[in-house]
Every structure is written in C-alpha cells, then in structure tokens.
C-alpha cells in the first residue's frame, strides 16, 4: 500500500511568522483543471493591516542595511529557491496547468530573475544618482532612497515568475512590502515565503497575503502608512485602487497586461518606480 503523505498547511506570511488568517477563514485552491489542491488562508482587512505594520517595522533595519548586505541576503534567497525547485515545479505546473518541462523553465527563470535583482542592490545608485554642477559654491548630489512600504498586487496568471518580478525590484533597494498573491494560484507564493523565512531576510521585509483581490487590495490602497502601490495584477480593479491611493499621494504602478510574458528580460523600471530622489546641498568654501 502507498504511504499516506504529510500535506502542507498553507498559511499567511506576516512579520516572519506563518499565521492563519485572524478571521479564521480559508478558501479552496484547485489546480488548473479544477481538482482540489489545498485550503489557503483567506486574508482579511485585519491581516492586511498587520502585514503593513510588520512591513513598516522592518523598514528601518532593511533600508538601513548596506546595499552589499541586502545583495547577499537576496542572493541567499536564490540559493534557498534552488533547493526547493522540485516543489516549485510541482506547484507551478499544477496551478498554472503547465507541463513539467514548461514549469521547469519557469522556475529556472524565477531563480535567475531573483539573482538578477539581487545584484542590483549596490548598483542602482550608480544609475539613479547624480552629482549636480549647480551655478554656485555648493557641493550638490542626488541619491536614490527607498520609498517605504510598498503594497503589491501580484500578477494573477504568472504565479511565481510574475511574483518575484514584482517583489524583487521592490525590496532590493530597501523597501519593505506586502504582497497579495495570485488569487487563484496562491500556493507558489506561500512556498516562496517559506524560502524567504529560511534565508537571512529579516521578518517583515516581505509579507505575503492570500485571498480575494477585490476584498483585500482596497484596504492596502487606502492604508495611510503605505507609500507605494504596485497594481501589476489588479486588472480592472486598478482604476479604483489608483484613485484610492491618492488619499496619501501613494506612488502607483498601473496594472500590467494580464497576458504579459514575465519571461521577457526586465529593465530597471520597476526598481526606479519605488525610489525617491534625495538631493543634498552643502556650501563649499574655506
């Protein structure tokens, strides 16, 4: 007789811990053909607010870490992803309805994408900063700084590669984030969280929520302690969410075409979107 396997409970990832939804709710996750896979946590408004609190608490330490340190931590995450690749291939193939070979390529691209962003940590200042030749006796320079807490609505179809393609650029520069996973295919996001939790990423830098986009995203968009909003996977909800985000002048990235091929080579655009430019002046003289 075949052994009865031990199945995983898929929970939220908030402040480095794996709580169930405070609401006690869950929802049924199926594979691409509608067969039961797992019960995922159905995040509530309170979970979203807890996640923002955790992200805010982690911001000082993460943004204050050296760029070299952040790069090494993120590279360490890639090492953890590699170690779990079989699990990712399985979840992506079942969730997105891909063949094992297709899913394999998606996981390859995911890990490589993570490494790509990890390497940007100590280079982004070189492309986004400047020394400014002002017409006066002043030393003047501009440097990029992270915007703060970024809420991310992850792509709906590309549940792993799309996810790391929006989380990576947010956190590599020192932001912390709350990411709302693909609603229909949330399992790879939770497995990613498990990789994050076992790397050296401080708790709270990435917080993962699973649940309904139309229920949770509005609370993130209206939250007054969220500074940026990436609506990559928000689709038609994007317009209302963008309008809500104006309440505290959040920086908004508009929805991405749902059929966007996330395997395409990225540009620095998503990193630059979550950065502020600070310009410092000081007089020069004896």
């Amino acid at each position, binding site marked *: 007789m075949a052994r009865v396997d031990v199945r995983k409970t898929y929970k939220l990832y908030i402040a480095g811990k794996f709580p169930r939804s405070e609401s006690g709710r869950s929802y049924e996750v199926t594979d691409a053909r509608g067969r039961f896979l797992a019960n995922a946590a159905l995040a509530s408004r309170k979970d979203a607010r807890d996640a923002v609190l955790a992200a805010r608490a982690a911001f000082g330490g993460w943004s204050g870490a050296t760029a070299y340190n952040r790069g090494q931590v993120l590279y360490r995450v890639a090492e953890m992803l590699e170690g779990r690749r079989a699990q990712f291939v399985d979840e992506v193939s079942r969730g997105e309805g891909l063949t094992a070979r297709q899913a394999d390529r998606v996981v390859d691209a995911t890990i490589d994408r993570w490494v790509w962003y990890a390497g940007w940590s100590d280079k982004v200042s070189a*492309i986004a900063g*400047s020394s*400014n*030749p*002002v*017409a*006066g006796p*002043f030393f*003047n320079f*501009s440097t990029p700084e992270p*915007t703060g807490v970024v809420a991310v609505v992850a792509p709906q179809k590309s549940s792993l590669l799309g996810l790391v*393609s929006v989380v990576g650029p947010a956190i590599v520069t020192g932001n912390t984030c709350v990411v709302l996973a693909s609603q229909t295919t949330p399992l790879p996001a939770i497995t990613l969280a498990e990789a994050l939790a076992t790397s050296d990423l401080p708790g709270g830098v990435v917080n993962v929520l699973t649940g309904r986009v139309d229920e949770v995203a509005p609370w993130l968009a209206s939250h007054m302690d969220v*500074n940026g909003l990436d609506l990559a996977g928000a689709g038609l909800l*994007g*317009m*209302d969410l*963008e*309008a809500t*985000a*104006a*309440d*505290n*002048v959040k*920086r*908004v990235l508009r929805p*991405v075409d749902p059929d*966007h091929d996330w395997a*395409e080579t*990225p*540009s*620095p*655009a*998503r990193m*630059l979107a979550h950065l*502020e*430019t*600070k*310009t*410092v*002046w*000081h*007089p020069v003289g004896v």
Partner: protein
Amino acid sequence: MAKKFDYAPAPESRAIVDIRSSYGLFIDGEFADPADGRSFKSVSPSSEEVLADISDASAADVDRAVKAARRAYTRAWSKMSGAERGKYLFRIARILQERSREFAVLESLDNGKPIKESRDVDVPLAAAHFFYHAGWADKLEYAGLATSTGRTPQPLGVAGQVIPWNFPLLMLAWKIAPALATGNTVVLKPAETTPLTALLFAEVCQQADLPPGVVNILTGAGETGRAVVEHPDVDKVAFTGSTEVGKLIARAVAGSRKKVTLELGGKAANIVFEDAPIDQSVEGIVRGVFFNQGHVCCAGTRLLVQESVADEVLTSLKRRVSSLRLGDPLDKNTDIGAINSAAQLERIRELSQIGEDEGAGRWSPPCEIPERGYWFPPTVFTGVSQAHRIAREEIFGPVLSVLTFRTPAEAVEKANNTPYGLSAGVWTEKGSLILWMADQLRAGVVWANTFNQFDPSSPFGGYKESGYGREGGRHGLAAYLKTWDN
C-alpha cells in the same frame, strides 16, 4: 540696540512694463478671445490696483488649445531634430535675459514679491532653466533613460501643466523648459492671481518664432485647470500647488494613460544644532521662512533648535527679524513684500490666531503695515508643540514655529513627524552629523548649512504627501519621456 538706519525710498520704475488693459488666451501662437467671453481681474496685492482684465478659459478653450498643441506636436515639434528644438529654447533663454528687468517688475507688481527677489532669483533662474534644458534637447539618448523601443527616448505628446502663484514665471520655466526640450508640446495654466508674466512669456514665444501651438497659455481658475488635467488628449499632467488639489488630480487621472508629476505642499524642519555658527544659522532661518513672504512650498517653517542654544538663537533671530523691511515690492530695499491675495492673507491670519489660541507665544517686530494691500508681518511662534496646528499645517506665509530638541535622534523623529517630505535644513559644523541627518531625513531636498537654494541642474521634489517626480537635472527629464514598462 543700534538704531535702525532710515533708508530713502528706492523704487524701481514701473515704466519699463507696458500692461495692456486686457489679455486674451494664447492659443496656436496668437492671442484669442475666450469662447464665452468671460474674464476676471488681476490685482496688484501691494496696492489692490486692478492691473488688467484676464480671459477666463472655458472647457471649449481648453479643447481648442489641446488641439493646437496636438497639431503642433504631430506636424512640427516631434518631427524636428533635438538640435533644432534646443535652439528655440536657447532663444527663449536669451530673450528672458534681455527682457529680465521687465519680467522682474511685472512679477513684483502682479505677485507682490520684493523686486530684489524677482530680479535676483525668479527671473535669472527662469532663464537658466531654459538655458540648461536647451542643451539636453539633442542629448537625450545619453541621459540614461533609454526605452525598450529604441535608443532615443520618446516624448509623451501633449503636456497639461498647472502652476501656482508663488513663483509664477519660475514655475512656468520649470514646467515648459523640460517639456519642450524632450519634444512635448504644452498647454499651461498659470494661477489666476498671477497671470501676467505668463502672458508676457507668450510674447517671448512669438519673438522667438516658436512654431504656433508648441506653447499655449490659458488663464483661468480651478475649473480651467481641471479641464486641462482631465482633457482626454493630454498625455502628461504636471502640477505644482497644494496637496489638496494634488490629490484631486491623482484621483482624476486614475486609470488613464496619463503620466503625472506632482509638486505639492511642505512643512520643512530647519534643524539647528548647538555647535552651529549662530549668526549664519539665523540668516538661514530668515532666508528659509521669510523668503517670498513664506509663500514657498519648501519653506523652513518649523525651526528645531537644540535646547542648549535655543535662547541664544531666539534672541539673535528676533534681532535679525526686527531689521527686515516690509513694504513696497518695487522698492529695492524691501525684504518682505505683500501677501499674494486677500484669501491667502485670511488663511495666514486664521492659522496664526489658532496658534495663539492653542497656547503658543506669538511675536512680531514692530512693523508699519501699509494702508492698502495685503500684508502680514513676519511672525515667530515659540513654545510650539508638535500637536499644534501651526506645527502641522502648511501656512504658506511668513510664520515660523519654534520647537526644541535635545538629541539628534529626537530631531530626526520630530522632523519626520509630518505627512509632508519636501525639504529640510541642517545646521552644524560636524560633517558626520550632517551626513547622518541627511540620510535620516525623509525629504527630497536637504540643505545643510544653507537653505532655499535652487538650480536647474539640481533635482527638486518631495517624499510622501509632498508629491512625486522630480524637476530639474537628469531626473526631471524622465517625467516627460516614455520610459520602460517593466
């Protein structure tokens, strides 16, 4: 204390400006009457004299201007090489320099700011802004902003721009120069209380033979601005003004393709440490909050002074503020001009009264207020706590709130305790402390041992509710160019 010197009046002649009795809208290279014939008056805030009758643009006029801008974009401006575009901008810079005194006098008449500021700051910086951006026009492929579609970054199309009344010509330059250099065409709405230098700028465009429709200037109030922002054929919205209106704009463009930059309000901390040279710091405090009557979004309105030197700084500050001269904006000795409008004066009065009611100590030097016009004496509030409204809300007038701190960490905590994040000042002799403070302050511009410095090569813009996007420098170009999507 030494007796204040008496200065003889030294008024700049207003004969150099020729203000017409009425102005049309500048659309497609010509002045035209507004569709529904409505107008309003522009008043000199220092005398309440009516300066001119100004057209009030309606939605139909906005549509006409956007169409002209689109035509100019499609047929002329987007087809022209960067080098040719740049030469037009150089021409504009030169004409602004040639006619600088005219612009300075007109600005001081219409806005109320002292002539020494319009003459030495606003107008030269406006010209410098055009000169700086002129050079970018044919070098955009080297700006590090290349797109996925090719090496040369592409313009967005038609830019709708709405600017405030505090630096009318300078804000126009901040908006128009980068838009044109990057290949966009423009529909610009100046503030309703200060339209005259923008209308004179329209003449500059004519003198420069700028192709018709590349720059369109529509005068009007909030409704005109809304029509510009919401017009479906506008590709880019740039706004400088209040955070309140900025939020309305961000909501209005939600879900559209429009790229937006917002430069909004501020409540900057100016932080003085005990080792700072007191006299220099006091000059910086005065420059930080009383420059342009405090009608400055990045004004240093919250003085955070280290407890050990608070009395000394305050004594010195009061002595210095007592020597400021308030009066005729056209007088070359004037330090503080008129408040821009009756409405703004009312707001400053109201918030100052609230400061008093909430228990802060109010002080102003003995100060003669002219009989006509809108005036407010330089005012310092002491004993201000962070909960006081005068420490939290933007007053946009010559009003300083003084708070104290003991440690650098406390200074940072207090400075960052605001929804705004436009600018900050730090005064200390200790280099490592300056750099640590500059790192900790959540603000887009940090002035260390100086304040209120501006330059076209230096990016300017805010964090948090002070807006997003930068103006000036390489960074400012990105606001007007198509950049990568992902």
